[in-house]
């Protein structure tokens, strides 16, 4: 496998402009002759489908939900970054680039990240033109807030619903194209395979989730924008339907999967309460501005939090990190919570949580000020936990939130399979080993509105559309494969439900491929996951009918894929014997117990190639070159 990142030559700031000039164009009259499949309707998928349709291409846009507006981008709360420098506080494209590449712990490509910073401003302009009601000042101009990992205020927001508003903006543009019949919207349909002819992506095989009908759709290019794979962990802040199946099918057809071990764990989530629990709910990180994190000093302390006297509390973040205190970055806060819980000092009914206490802030500022700032979050907490956080400290615990890894793409966002493009969280491209807050929305929309419309033309212009007959063996083979897998699942009729397997996989992943990883644990995971997978294929029980709406069958298929992906994540984590960003190897720490990168050995992208059932995947390395930034070690003491 040859990985050519296709990063343009020349100075960083000129790469994208020069590259755009060099890209081949498709004549406007010819665009209508091309069909493009876009899978997914989140920020990346909807923006790509709308933009490509505006250019004149015929687009088929697929989603598994009933409407494009349900995609999980909708749940993003905080905001979207852009280098507008409206607050006049010294922001610039260069600074956004620098913060993002540093925040990613130097495991992303300079050229990609710089381009992201360049187009960030256009996204805000586009959003405002669509009628997105971003927060404003009394003077009528846009308001900005600050976010983790940056010393400037560059985050645009719409209450705590920024993702929703940006997605509805992209969705409205998409629906305009649907009305014009430029986009054919195919909802409640799941992509289950990628069809390749002569090594090029030319179509997909899908299942209609209402009727169970298996169909194939052919096109000149396939764009995957199906989000991340955080649900490997069973419990995450992802939506129930979020899954890796489309991306995983591409991997099994030969697309390289990059940096699978890079996952982000968010420190402020509502802790889990029992086995029945189906997901974890995130609460904005901003809470750490006014809350103090603590656990009892004594192990197994069962007293109510307000009965524990001040001198028997351990404000561990404040004592370990005097200068940053409760505001250390996401990964540091998360890892320390795990440390104290592992030490037997966790709180709450499950003993897997820490306190986030607002008593001091309430004393200092008054309950009203706290209510104004965080009222909606406090209400949400009370609804779920049934405790009043104004009176009793909140309980929080980290949860899986975002996956930086994904399908490998070059500078044009094309995978190593010609004609297969990957956008948004589904690709690996811009966040390195750790994503900064408010950057996911930026990347998804940058890919869809401002990158793919240019780069896909270059591919189409140089690859003549070839008509593939419907009897082509590749199509028949793909359809047979999809049918076989489903029939196999239904035939087993075992004892355990797929959810039970998923929960077990989640436990393995969280334990060994979670916040802190080491060789022994990862090897253990590499033993346990295949065992669980074997059991799954012998003992799973699926609700019966494949010709009806059957969510259990959908989920079981996705869990089968998670059982494979989990293993690849563990393998990648084992291979990368350094700590960087969200990937913490216990073997690689500084004397102070902080993550220690090994730039000489690991300044590369791991790209894994599928080698067949039961065979070890092959690792390819794309070396990362840093000409413009100096690699430094993070410290928050």
């Amino acid at each position, binding site marked *: 496998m040859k990985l050519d990142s296709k990063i343009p030559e020349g100075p960083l700031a000129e790469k994208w402009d020069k590259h755009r000039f060099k890209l081949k164009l498709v004549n406007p009259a010819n665009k209508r002759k091309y069909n493009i499949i876009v899978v997914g309707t989140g920020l990346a998928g909807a923006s790509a489908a709308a933009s490509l349709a505006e250019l004149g291409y015929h687009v088929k846009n697929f989603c598994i939900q009933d409407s494009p507006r349900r995609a999980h981008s909708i749940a993003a709360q905080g905001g979207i970054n852009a280098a507008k420098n409206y607050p006049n506080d010294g922001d610039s494209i260069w600074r956004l680039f620098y913060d993002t590449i540093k925040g990613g712990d130097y495991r992303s490509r300079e050229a990609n990240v710089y381009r992201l910073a360049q187009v960030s401003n256009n996204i805000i302009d586009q959003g405002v033109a669509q009628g997105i009601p971003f927060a404003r000042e009394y003077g009528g101009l846009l308001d900005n807030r600050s976010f983790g990992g940056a010393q400037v205020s560059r985050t645009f927001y719409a*209450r705590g619903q920024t993702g929703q*508003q940006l997605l509805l903006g992209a969705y409205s*543009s998409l*629906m*305009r194209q649907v009305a014009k019949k430029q986009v054919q919207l195919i909802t409640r349909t799941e992509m289950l395979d990628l069809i390749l002819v002569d090594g090029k992506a030319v179509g997909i095989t899908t299942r209609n989730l209402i009727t169970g009908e298996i169909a194939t759709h052919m096109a000149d290019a396939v764009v995957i924008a199906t989000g991340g794979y955080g649900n490997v962990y069973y419990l995450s802040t992802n939506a129930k339907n979020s899954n890796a199946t489309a991306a995983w099918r591409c991997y099994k057809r030969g697309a390289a999967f990059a940096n699978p071990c890079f996952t982000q764990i968010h420190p402020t989530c509502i802790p889990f309460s029992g086995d*029945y629990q189906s997901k974890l709910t995130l609460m904005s990180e901003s809470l750490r501005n006014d809350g103090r994190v603590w656990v009892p000093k004594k192990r197994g302390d069962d007293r109510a939090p307000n009965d524990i006297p001040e001198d028997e509390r351990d404000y561990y973040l404040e004592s370990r990190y005097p200068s940053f205190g409760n505001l250390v970055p996401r990964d540091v806060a998360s890892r320390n919570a795990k440390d104290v819980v592992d030490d037997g000092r966790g709180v709450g009914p499950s003993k897997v949580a820490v306190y986030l206490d607002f008593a001091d802030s309430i004393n200092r500022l008054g309950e009203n000020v706290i209510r104004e700032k965080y009222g909606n979050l406090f209400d949400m907490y009370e609804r779920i936990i049934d405790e009043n956080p104004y009176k009793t400290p909140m309980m929080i615990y980290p949860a899986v939130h975002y996956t930086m890894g994904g399908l490998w793409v070059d500078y044009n966002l094309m995978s190593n399979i010609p004609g297969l493009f990957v956008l948004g969280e589904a690709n690996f491209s811009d966040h390195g080993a750790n994503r900064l807050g408010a950057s996911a929305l930026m990347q998804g929309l940058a890919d869809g509105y401002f990158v793919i419309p240019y780069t896909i033309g270059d591919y189409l212009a140089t690859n003549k559309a070839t008509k593939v007959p419907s009897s082509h063996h590749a199509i028949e083979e793909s359809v047979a494969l999809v049918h076989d897998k489903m029939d196999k699942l239904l035939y087993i009729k075992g004892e355990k439900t797929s959810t039970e397997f998923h929960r077990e996989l989640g436990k393995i992943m969280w334990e060994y491929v979670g916040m802190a990883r080491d060789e022994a644990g990862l090897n253990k995971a590499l033993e346990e996951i295949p065992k669980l997978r074997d059991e799954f294929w012998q003992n799973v029980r699926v609700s019966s009918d494949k010709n009806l709406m*059957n969510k259990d069958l959908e989920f079981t298929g996705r869990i089968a894929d998670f059982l494979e992906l989990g293993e690849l994540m563990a393998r990648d984590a084992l291979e990368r014997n350094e700590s960087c960003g969200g990937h913490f190897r216990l073997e690689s720490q500084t004397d102070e117990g902080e993550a220690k990168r090994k730039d000489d050995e690991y300044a590369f992208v791991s790209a894994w190639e599928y080698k067949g059932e039961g065979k070890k995947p092959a690792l390819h390395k794309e070396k990362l070159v840093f000409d413009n930034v100096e690699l430094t070690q993070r410290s928050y003491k």
Partner: protein
Amino acid sequence: MADMTLTLKIWRQKDRKSPGKFVTYTVENVSEHMSFLEMMDVLNEQLIKKGEDVVEFDNDCREGICGMCSLVINGRPHGQEHGTATCQLHMRKFKDGDIIVVEPWRAAAFPVLKDLAVDRTAFDRIMAAGGYTSINVGGAQDANAIPIAKRASDEAMDAASCIGCGACVAACPNASASLFVAAKISQLALLPQGQIERRRRAANMVAQMDKEGFGDCSNHAECEAVCPKEISITHIARMKREYFKAMALGE
């Protein structure tokens, strides 16, 4: 509090065409900390093990924003809690021994697909009729070139927070979609970006709403009362004004 045992009367319907009926199930060991949907998950796990078909119900984000979840619970869309979607309704709001009737959204424009899942694509078609500003990517001016009064922007955001779940239709005695349609018309009517097409938008979206077979708005305001985002019927009043302007002045 000890775990609860609940009796569920659930609407079961095989597909769009088959007739449906209520089936009664008992769910034991329901923890008060479970969400309503997690309780439904427990029921489905039981059904799988017994070799029966699972109860289909739409859900996704489970944090009250995607609008995928539905369910009319004891006669109320999204259950009895105000400003809450079904996914954030918790079992502590119920008592041991309760009998809970669970029904799908009922409207001709939302046909049942299976059990409790309904087809809400009518909303997408209404959006396609005009719920946007007709601008292509690339031509937008600088975001701060259009100042917008904070009050207008905030009010637009109130409307824009609609999650498109369809509870308004489910709750309306007439199965009217007015609140959903009004939220989008109102959002864009309040903002300068929406001015150019405002009359055309109001006319076309209302026409599509009527075409989809939703009922008339009789001002019961049940929609506002069940809306998980508590969107006000003030927006319906604005939609009407927009429509009258379109009637009087044309496009």
